[in-house]
């Protein structure tokens, strides 16, 4: 048996290649560049790689638009219109997210532990902190994740799909555990994410095996061809397809595979949450779209019931549970779950409109999501000094009651955050409205009107918790430092006073030592020994500005983007 090296169309895989090569270079830089300039170099390489990849996508764009794209590396990857749109979206948003990640803000500290491997509370941790160590491996990790994400939506081969999934997931697990503050929470989130992710990967692999057993191939096109023949082993196909989808639905955070989302979003360093809430979801939806549209065109009607069930459950659960959250990052986490449901509506529509609507929605949602988490990153706790003056800036002020009155003290910041919330809620003149409108109308067009109905109702209910935050920011008096908690907190968050933390704190209690740290922090919040403050950071401000401009532009004049998507976004068969 002779081995023939596949022809590699380097131009077509340039976006992926640039990012992955830069990631490898980044690892080498860790070894050879002096610590003094390491961070600067890594950030520069990361920006250059992402920008270069975006440029490569832009260069590919005209030819793919004209000829529909091509299969590369022996048919493992399909560089077609949908791939390019998803890749471009991921690259734009990861550049914006990188602005947040790399920004050390006015505190001079980034979001990451000085030495992620140290045991929380240990002497070594303290030493690393005083020495001012930095975990600059973060940037190569980020590039690896982005590289995996760029491959993910392009895979027309299930094995490559699995590899891409792992390439994008493993760095995310690591980065989730790297928070500078609340390290136990962060590490716990990381471990959870890893364990559940491994479980989901196993499901995916099992599904791939079943599909291979059914069709004798790993290529989507050949599986698709095999579904046309009656073989009597359809259950193999059905179960395999559902298992593969389960793996992908885990990544997008759809019910019943959503449980990790709020915990991980809360535990991860906020800039990383910003990055993964947008980019992971976009990449995974890209892969899901390709799997459903290209791999199973003959199966769509059989699998519709599964997709419908998942979409409805996701919208309802995401919305309903978000209503009772008291932590801003968890609210946004559940809101991300609800949005997964809305986007699934576009996927389920199973028509061209649904495809285009989904792609647009991903961009609209991603922009608002990165922007919202970036704002969360700026709103911090500040300890009250011994003399009653201002103390040190601490971690993010994530409890909702701490956001009370933010609109008065920081009108611009609160205004921008309101804009993102309105976009999440799908209020007209924001990108979210156009996104929701396109997926729901596509769903109605595709005969899935019950989904659209549930979607509209959920959106209406979701407005409640978005607007609750707006009300909190603008119309609630901030609590006075030192005053008893009851005044501000209960009034601010009617449904959930701060003391009522047992359920939220449960993950912490489950892991022993953490309980002490976090409970102490809760108490600290309770007694108002901390105040809420806002830090500045040029990178974050730039990122928030880009996201806000995108949100408004896509809401007011979406036509150019819609046209661009419509002109290019088709799958290779």
């Amino acid at each position, binding site marked *: 048996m002779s081995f023939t090296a596949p022809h590699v169309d380097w131009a077509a895989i340039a976006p992926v290649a640039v990012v992955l090569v830069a990631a490898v270079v980044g690892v080498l830089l860790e070894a050879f560049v002096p610590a003094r300039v390491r961070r600067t170099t890594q950030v520069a390489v990361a920006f250059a790689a992402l920008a270069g990849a975006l440029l490569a996508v832009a260069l590919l764009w005209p030819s793919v638009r004209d000829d529909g794209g091509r299969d590369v590396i022996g048919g493992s990857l399909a560089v077609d219109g949908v791939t390019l749109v998803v890749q471009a979206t991921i690259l734009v948003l990861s550049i914006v997210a990188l602005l947040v990640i790399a920004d050390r803000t006015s505190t001079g500290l980034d979001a990451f532990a000085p030495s992620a491997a140290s045991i929380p509370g240990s002497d070594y941790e303290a030493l690393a902190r005083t020495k001012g160590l930095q975990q600059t491996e973060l940037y190569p990790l980020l590039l690896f994740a982005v590289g995996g994400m760029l491959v993910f939506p392009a895979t027309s081969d299930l094995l490559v799909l699995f590899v891409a999934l792992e390439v994008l997931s493993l760095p995310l697990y690591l980065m989730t555990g790297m928070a500078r503050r609340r390290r136990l929470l962060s590490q716990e989130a990381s471990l959870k994410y890893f*364990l559940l992710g491994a479980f989901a990967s196993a499901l995916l692999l099992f599904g791939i095996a079943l599909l291979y057993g059914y069709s004798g191939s790993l290529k989507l096109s050949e599986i698709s061809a095999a579904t046309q023949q009656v073989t009597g082993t359809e259950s193999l196909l059905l179960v395999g397809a559902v298992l593969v989808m389960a793996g992908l639905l885990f990544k997008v955070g759809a019910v019943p595979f959503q449980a990790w989302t709020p915990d991980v979003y809360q535990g991860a360093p906020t800039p990383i949450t910003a990055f993964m809430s947008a980019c992971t979801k976009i990449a995974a939806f890209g892969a899901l779209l390709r799997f459903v549209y290209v791999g199973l065109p003959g199966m769509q009607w*059989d699998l519709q019931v599964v997709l419908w069930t998942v979409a409805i459950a996701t919208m309802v659960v995401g919305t309903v549970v978000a209503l009772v959250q008291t932590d801003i990052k968890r609210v946004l986490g559940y809101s991300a779950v609800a949005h997964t449901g809305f986007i699934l509506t576009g996927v389920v529509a199973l028509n061209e409109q649904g495809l285009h609507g989904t792609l647009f929605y991903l961009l609209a949602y991603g922009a608002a999501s990165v922007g919202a988490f970036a704002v969360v990153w700026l709103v911090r706790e500040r300890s009250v000094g011994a003399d009653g003056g201002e103390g040190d800036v601490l971690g993010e002020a994530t409890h909702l009651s701490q956001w009370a009155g933010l609109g008065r003290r920081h009108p611009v910041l609160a205004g921008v955050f309101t804009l993102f919330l309105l976009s999440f809620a799908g209020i007209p003149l924001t990108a979210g409205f156009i996104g929701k409108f396109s997926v729901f109308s596509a769903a109605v067009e595709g005969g899935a009107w019950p989904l659209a109905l549930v979607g509209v109702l959920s959106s209406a209910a979701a407005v409640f918790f978005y607007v609750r935050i707006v009300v909190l920011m603008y119309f609630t008096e901030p609590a006075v430092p030192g005053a008893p908690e009851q005044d501000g907190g209960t009034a601010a968050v009617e449904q959930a006073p701060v003391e009522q933390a047992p359920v939220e704190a449960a993950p912490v209690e489950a892991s022993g030592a953490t309980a002490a740290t976090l409970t102490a922090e809760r108490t600290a919040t309770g007694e108002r020994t901390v105040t809420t403050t806002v830090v500045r950071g040029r990178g974050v401000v730039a990122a928030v500005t880009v996201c806000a401009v995108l949100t408004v532009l896509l809401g007011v004049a979406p036509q150019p983007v819609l046209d661009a998507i419509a002109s290019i976004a088709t799958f290779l068969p």
Partner: protein
Amino acid sequence: MHTLTALVAALPAALPLETIEPIASAPVRGGIYAVAPLLVGLPLASAALLLLLGRRADRWGHWLGVLASAGAFVVGLATFVALLGRPADDRVLDVHLGRWIDAGAFHLDAGIRLDPLSLTFVLLVTFVGTLIHVYSVAYMEHDADRRRFFAYLNLFVAAMLVLVLANSYLLLFVGWEGVGLASYLLIGFWNHNLPYAVAAKKAFVANRIGDIGLLVALGLMFATFGGVDFQTVLTADLSGVSEGTMTAIGLMLLLAACGKSAQFPLQSWLGDAMAGPTPVSALIHAATMVTAGVYLIVRSNVLFDAAPTAQLVVVVVGAITLLFGAIVGCAKDDIKKALAASTMSQIGYMVLAAGLGPVGYAFAIFHLVTHGFFKAGMFLGAGSVMHGMDDQVDMRRFGGLGRYMKVTYFTFMAGWLAILGIPPFAGYWSKDKIIEAAFVPQDGQLWRAWVFGLVTLIGAGITAFYMSRLFFMTFEGERRWSSRRDGGDQHPHEAPALMTWPMIVLAVGSVGLGALLSVGGWFTHWLEPVTGHAEHGEPVLPVWLIVTLTLVLVLAGGVLAWRRYAVSTVPVAPPIGTALTRAARVDLYQDQVNDALLVEPGQHLTRSLVFVDGAVVDGGAHGLGKTTVGLGALLRRLQTGFVRSYAGGMLAGLVVLLVVLLVTQS
């Protein structure tokens, strides 16, 4: 086209025979027309400036207002002269301003329509408006909020010019709402006085009802013609459109006109609107805004010509209103309310004329222009009387004032004679034409000629009675006020020059404008590019007889008023009067009818809706909210934080999905 050009070339020779059909607009840019946006821009900028600068502009703000209005008049005059210089078949111009709305299949350009009709209004609004601005400088001198008053006046002028210059019904609607807003603000200018604020609200609500008509008409036009700009709608091929649709559009436009022009059955607000300062009554509620309905009908002449039923309704509404206003006017003792009733009645004449079709359009506008002059003049006269009589408006407390305020007396007399239609005063030339036109059979239906002809004829007689009553009660007869010398507190005196000069100018117009514009039928021909040419049909009575009859009735009305209000004693307390008088004093019970028919049921409806809203809708929503939050709290318990339970949940969910799938498959 060549024949048309040839016809136009022969225009001076054969003036009465030459015909011009309504013509499509031609786009223009540059030249004098480029300054046309200033017509709106100047007063709008001035209004914005006055409102934004606040108290800082108190000292000179009113003069800025005057200047802005005068500037708009100068621009209007320049545009008018430029338009006069063009051949008659090329006098409909569109100045393109830019793409306004671009939504799917709907495109709309914002633009300015310059044609004889719009320029007639521009000149009327800016000329009379400027005079009233000047008058107000003195009239409002002691008001602390004079600057705000001028800001609103400028806002009104700008909005009114948007209304008449718009090149689409949608832009017209913008102006339509703008004048409504300005009217509301100005009626309620002294809103610390509760009844005044209520009057403003009443005007606003009545106008809203009309606005709904215009909105529905806009929708119908878009559905029928695929556009709402004049170019599309007024030159559309109507052959494929059912008469029902055209009637619906016509009736909706009429509803709009009724609201804005205080026509039956939406007339009730005009009397109360007299709560505003008198210059406002003169400008907005006599000369310009209330005539917007007539403008709308004449502007839409093509649509009405295709809807005979709607036209008939227009005529009927006009006829009812002209009698209604005239009867109410006979019983009012408040000088401004009597004038308001007269305005209503005179606009009834215009609406009636506009409903007569091509025969009447030009006369409706003609009467509108002359009425704008003489009615504004009389309102300013009434304001001058109030100025001299410490804001007294009860005519039973006047009498013999002509001796104390000569200028007011003579200028008011000019207006009075004009509205009576005494030749050669302005009203004669316009109103008489309407009466003649009303006597012309429409569609060969003789009954219409007789009914509407007689209504206008009788209306003229009643008009003569109540206007003479007003004039005699105020200026003639014995004095019923007490001077300071007698221990009273009134000393009638002439107003300052800033007030008298505008009155004099308007009086000159009341005397000469009708005759001037009638020379060789100039005004009718001037409007022909818009209204089209109509052969004047033969009235059922000879013209000389109609004129004579009209004059006889007018004289009879005048003499009757002379005997009752100038020669005999007028009681200071109003006598009980006949049932008709009592009814007319309360506007023929229109408020009671409105209350019984609309307000009461409406309030019952809202009360029951509020109850249903509270009990069912809110209850349901709160219940749903509580259920959802409860469900959320329940679901949150599933989020235990244990990885094993998460993984178990995933597995269970997966199994459920597979079972669902396999069950639906088999």
